[in-house]
């Protein structure tokens, strides 16, 4: 079959006409931009619940006994659901489903995703998984309190942990549904990036946002299977009394009729998913930050090729390091050598990315609107959190720190806070494009400062708590007699900071809603950006994105401050002036729609 004829046929399938009814336009929409906003809003709402849970956790730790609903069992439930919500239902969904959907088609110059119907299905499947997640709160015994890692046997043995009945079953079902949604999304994103790029958009001209989301989607496609399989087997253990993960156990004097299961098998499956999952979240975040930094530094991203290869290297290595989460799990201790070595090797591509972000700022012409502040905040927290990975990855240094607050501080900074910073940077940065109005800069800056300082106050002290050896997932430290009393002071500080940071997010919500309705009208390209999404005929981009003609790409995405150019940015759609082929180029340029003027303010 001919490739070209099929291509034409497929292009024709893309939204011959715009849907007009309310339901097809805003609810069961197949437009990638609408789906992106649905994903974003849903994920942020779910995340708000996760944020409230973190308040409850912090209140108990800072002011023990101050909130009556936080008891030893509900503490574990809040903690478990907080982790699950934040990692999967907020970060993964928002970065892939939200930013992936919004940016991929616009940045590669296509009218929509390859499979708009599948895209819609992906969102609604995600929606169902969220319903199931919350349904688990209302069943007998409540939601699971086995930690977001759901380690068996305790997660599925009734009586061994809170919510070990229908709570964990609904959660596992929800995860299985989420995996289905994530897989549908990933297939769509990967196919779209590989097959639908507009003329001139070679792989090495893709903006790093697209690269980050693309590699993240590939990781999702190949890592979610392990979560799915582990989840199904755990569900069978819970529902049908199989013994995949449960050996002979005796719970409170009761000998259970299980036999011959291996709890470590689940840990391997979980972390075979769980480690790439970290990168499913952070690689898209890295991509967004790269583009935002370059734009507001008015400078090309430093070492674009190295950035791409670093993304690919991190993605590849992330599949062979999973058992560094299991150094003291009782697995064969000789595995430790390999997993430690492979893990610290990841530091090299990660460091390359950090250096290149810094060198992007070097000799730039930096401006500091809110997205830029959050992007720099990302680099800072990513480094502050990432470096401590060198303790935890280096097997012997992990032994005293494993499962202490050191770990909590590490992953919150490196993939929680920094991913959220990238998301916030991205939302502020693309808000004028998505909504057509500017957000309020003053509110945005207040939001940044409280969040940035607050995040450090919450999570940095955890490192010293970890050195002191405070185990994580403790409802109270009253029983640990040999802790210095100043620990409680730290806990109070962290709780106050957490409440302040949480409150600052209300400013963000208010800013977004108010600005969407009343904000100043935004120009098509307010940041003076080079990438395609800023060159759309109208803002917000129309249904089908580009009007009658698809854009044609002539250069990479980072021609900022190009010597000799009239402005300090050259859009990707602007032809390369080639003296030899000048006549040809000039001809092509004339038939090109002129990009809108960007103020560069």
């Amino acid at each position: 079959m001919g490739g070209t004829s099929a291509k034409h046929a497929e292009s024709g399938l893309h939204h011959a006409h715009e849907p007009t009814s309310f339901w097809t336009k805003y609810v069961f929409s197949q437009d990638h931009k609408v789906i992106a906003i649905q994903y974003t809003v849903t994920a942020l709402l779910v995340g708000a619940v996760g944020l409230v849970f973190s308040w409850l956790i912090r209140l108990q730790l800072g002011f023990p006994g101050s909130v009556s609903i936080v008891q030893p069992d509900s503490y574990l439930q809040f903690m478990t659901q907080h982790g699950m919500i934040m990692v999967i239902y907020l970060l993964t969904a928002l970065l892939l489903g939200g930013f992936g959907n919004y940016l991929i088609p616009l940045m590669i110059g296509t009218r929509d995703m390859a499979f708009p119907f599948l895209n819609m299905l992906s969102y609604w499947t995600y929606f169902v998984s969220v319903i199931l997640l919350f349904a688990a709160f209302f069943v007998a015994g409540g939601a699971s309190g086995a930690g977001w890692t759901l380690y068996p046997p305790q997660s599925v043995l009734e009586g061994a942990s809170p919510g070990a009945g229908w709570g964990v079953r609904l959660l596992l079902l929800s995860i299985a549904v989420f995996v289905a949604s994530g897989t549908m999304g990933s297939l769509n994103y990967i196919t779209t990036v590989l097959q639908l790029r507009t003329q001139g958009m070679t792989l090495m001209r893709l903006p790093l946002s697209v690269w980050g989301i693309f590699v993240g989607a590939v990781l999702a496609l190949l890592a979610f299977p392990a979560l799915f399989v582990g989840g199904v087997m755990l569900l069978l253990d819970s529902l049908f009394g199989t013994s995949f993960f449960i050996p002979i156990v005796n719970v409170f004097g009761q000998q259970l009729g299980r036999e011959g299961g291996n709890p470590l098998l689940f840990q391997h499956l979980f972390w075979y998913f769980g480690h790439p999952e970290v990168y499913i979240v952070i690689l898209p975040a890295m991509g967004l930050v790269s583009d935002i930094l370059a734009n507001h530094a008015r400078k090309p991203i430093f070492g674009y090729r190295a950035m791409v290869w670093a993304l690919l290297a991190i993605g590849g290595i992330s599949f062979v390091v999973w058992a560094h989460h299991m150094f003291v799990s009782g697995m064969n201790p000789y595995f430790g050598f390999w997993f430690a070595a492979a893990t610290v090797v990841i530091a090299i591509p990660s460091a390359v990315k950090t250096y290149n972000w810094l060198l992007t700022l070097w000799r730039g012409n930096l401006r500091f609107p809110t997205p830029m502040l959050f992007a720099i905040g990302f680099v800072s927290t990513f480094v502050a959190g990432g470096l401590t990975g060198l303790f935890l990855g280096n097997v012997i240094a992990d032994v005293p720190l494993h499962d202490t607050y050191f770990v909590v501080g590490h992953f919150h900074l490196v993939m929680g806070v920094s991913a959220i910073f990238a998301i916030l940077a991205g939302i502020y940065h693309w808000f004028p494009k998505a909504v057509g109005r500017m957000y309020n800069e003053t509110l945005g800056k207040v939001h940044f400062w409280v969040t940035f300082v607050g995040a450090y106050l919450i999570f940095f002290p955890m490192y010293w708590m970890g050195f002191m050896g405070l185990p994580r997932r403790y409802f109270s430290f009253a029983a640990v007699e040999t802790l210095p009393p100043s620990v409680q002071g730290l806990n109070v500080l962290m709780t106050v900071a957490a409440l302040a940071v949480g409150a600052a997010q209300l400013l963000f919500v208010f800013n977004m809603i108010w600005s969407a309705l009343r904000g100043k009208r935004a120009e098509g390209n307010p940041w003076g950006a080079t990438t395609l999404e800023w060159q759309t005929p109208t803002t917000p981009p129309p249904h089908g994105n580009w009007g009658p003609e698809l854009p044609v790409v002539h250069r990479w995405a980072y021609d900022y401050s190009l010597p000799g150019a009239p402005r300090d940015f050259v859009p990707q759609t602007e032809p390369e002036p080639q003296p030899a082929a000048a006549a040809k180029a000039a001809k092509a340029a004339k038939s090109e729609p002129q990009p809108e003027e960007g103020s560069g303010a």
Partner: protein
Amino acid sequence: MQGPALAIVIVLLVAAAVGVTVLGIWWLPPLASNWGAIDMMLVITLVITGIAFVAVHAVIAYFVVRYRRARAKRAEFIPDNPKLEKLLIGVTALGIVILLAPGLFVYSRFIQPPPDPLVVEVLGQQWAWGYRLPGADGELGRADPELFAQNPFGVDTSDPKAGDDVLVFPGSPLHLPVGRPVLFKIRAKDVLHSVYVREFRVKMDAVPGLLTQVWFVPEKTGTFELLCAELCGIGHFNMKSSIVVESEAEFQDWLRRQTTVSQAFVPAQD
């Protein structure tokens, strides 16, 4: 204004972090075992990562002030610099090797217990720790999870080696002799637990259906807390036990006064 403000905040932040660390306001609890090498690894890692942390933030702070927007100026077009990139990769790789090589060396000692240690079986259950020490014959009797139905330690009372095993029931402290290598053989009765003694720098999960182990030499006398470091349910935060490290003579004296398997459980009738 945002540039200088960011620089000031970052400088304050880094200064505070370095200050707290150098002053040692919050630090590891005093070492009480042979694992000084682990402390050394932590210090090496802290120094290297600390340098990187300070350097990166110093650069950010400098750049956001030095290169903040000026109307008349344009950024310099510097797409890359392969030489500089290679140099940075080299420096990073070197730092990593410095961390990894000694780390793996210490780890290889960590996973190889010395010959002839004092073997102590640690049994984790919701939410307490029990212990079993070999009696006069110097060996532990057979144990099997199926036997939890018969006695709380799951010991095979018909095994001739089991009768003189010394039992430390949940709630009672474990005593250990100072200066002698100890090998914990760790079991779990119900769910995952983790043996964690902060002053000894050791940690190892207790996994039902599996026997795990960890070794150390207590080098200071005193009482230490053994905490659970793996989430094991509602009572996780209360699951602790005491370890009393004392002289060999005191230890032997304590050992003699403990209940043995044959005293505690009627041997199985055949």
